[in-house]
């Protein structure tokens, strides 16, 4: 029971980081960033590269990786996405193509073998009678902190209010003088940072290979749909729901069936309540 509680928390926190970033991009910037998984992968690979090739300490490498990926995300938004806004569905297509480019670059640069990223905390800890790796606990802690900070940022700062305003009514926000382009860049930066952080934290205990970004992103999509497209609250709620559901299924049935959990959840959402848990419109 306790191990489900703890491992479920680890999974949920990672899913939440990915889902919140994706839903922010869609809710605020109306952008389907299908390269979202790439940020996750680049965070992990960035850490790997900097610890092995540049011999930086783990913490420094991790922070640098997140910063670089964030910068890449903002650059991508500025140079490749912004010019295509309003041109039909070129943006999702472009991001999808970019995701493939990133995967291929990683493959050509690092090969297809799984890479090893050392843990931040090598030791195991006993929590509630369960032997958990320090890395996993760190993951939950950091993810939780980051999301809390994000909440504070969005609800207590001026830039945060701009983000909220833009997500509610784009035209009105423009009339009030909110710099739309800059907010979009900010949101993209946040989205990339969240995903990269998740990648950095989970790299030590999950597989690091060029295609590692795809399934996490599909997972993020599923969670965002179940929670409600554009709703941060919904993403977190759905991340908890699905994270725990998967952990329970993994323990009671088998790991093979966990993939079907999100599939069933998405299907049920689309058929019964397309708006999702906290979504606004049903159609």
């Amino acid at each position: 029971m306790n191990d489900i509680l703890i491992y479920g928390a680890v999974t949920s926190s990672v899913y939440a980081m990915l889902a919140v970033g994706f839903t922010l991009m869609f809710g605020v910037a109306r952008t389907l960033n299908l390269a979202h998984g790439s940020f996750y992968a680049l965070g992990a690979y960035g850490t790997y590269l900097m610890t092995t090739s540049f011999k930086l300490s783990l913490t420094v490498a991790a922070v640098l990786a997140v910063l670089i990926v964030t910068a890449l995300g903002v650059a991508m938004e500025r140079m490749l996405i912004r010019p295509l806004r309003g041109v039909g569905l070129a943006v999702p297509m472009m991001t999808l193509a970019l995701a493939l480019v990133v995967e291929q670059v990683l493959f050509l640069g690092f090969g297809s073998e799984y890479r090893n990223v050392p843990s931040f905390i090598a030791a195991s800890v006993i929590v509630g009678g369960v032997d958990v790796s320090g890395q996993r606990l760190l993951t939950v802690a950091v993810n939780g902190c980051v999301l809390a900070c994000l909440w504070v940022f969005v609800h207590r700062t001026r830039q945060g209010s701009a983000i909220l305003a833009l997500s509610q009514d784009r035209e009105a926000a423009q009339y009030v003088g909110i710099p739309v382009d800059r907010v979009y860049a900010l949101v993209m930066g946040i989205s990339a940072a969240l995903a990269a952080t998740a990648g950095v934290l989970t790299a030590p205990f999950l597989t690091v290979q060029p295609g590692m970004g795809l399934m996490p992103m599909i997972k993020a999509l599923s969670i965002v749909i179940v929670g409600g497209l554009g709703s941060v609250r919904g993403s977190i709620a759905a991340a908890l729901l699905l994270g725990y559901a998967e952990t329970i299924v993994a323990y009671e049935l088998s790991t093979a069936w966990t993939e079907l959990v999100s599939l069933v959840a998405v299907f049920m959402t689309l058929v019964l309540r397309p708006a999702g848990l906290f979504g606004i419109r049903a159609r």
Partner: protein
Amino acid sequence: MSKAYANLAGATGFMAVMIVLPLVVRGRYFVGVLTLGLIYGIWAASWDFMSGLTGRENFGHALFIGAGAYTAGFLNTIWMANPWWSLPAAACVAVVFSLAVGIPTLRLSGPYFSLATLAAAAIMQRLTLIFWERTGGEDGLQGIAPLLKSPLELYYLCLFSLVAVVAILLAISASPWGMILRAIGGDELACRASGHNTTLYKVAAFAIGAAPAGLGGALYAHHQLQVGPQLLSVFVSVSVITMAYVGGIGSMYGAAIGAILLTVLTELLRGAGEWRLLVYSTVLVLMLFFRPHGLVAPLWQALRGGSE
């Protein structure tokens, strides 16, 4: 020369070239490459039909391709069926998948359809790996029987299939139903306001596009004699989309020709080896930026004199 005659001349010219080509440039390898190009042509044209006309982007065409290919694989290796059964069976299975994905999502506005198609193909790929005991996992299904004795015969079968598929899709596109599909692509709300049940049309178009994709998957299975989870990958979906973009969205014949050209070109780039996939993705990025209307169809329309 009127537009219709020009089109007929172009089509005949294309057919003549494609019929003669493998006889002139001999060699099993080359025929194999051309056959693959034709199969990609079926996939690209069938993607273009739904997504090109209605503007609802399908990011998971690989789902139908893989479904068709694995259907052929299962029928042939596990149930020892005659290979010819694969073709209709694959098409039917693909249609079933299209209904499963399309019916819940196409009635909703928003990105649900696009996201669901992407997710469906990826999840299906994951499932083939998870249930590796049944599907052969990474290696997939091997030892599939060929459809026809010689590669040349298979080539002509694929050519015939491609021409038939493109002809049928073009006929639908030129019909009143095609006009309504284009109207959905132009402005779906206004199309509803004109009295049409747009969801029904979209689902129908999706299913009509899925069938040839499945068929192509079966042809692929009996050509390569093996199928694997790579057929369900995002890469396959994006390749198909790239070919349609190069060909000119909404033209269908453009997608087919784009597919043949790109397949042949990438084979010529064989020396680049692992860089091939990178080249593909970069081509799409460039196309989106500089030539969103494509190359093949606009070129043909310019040659013919006047736009559609």
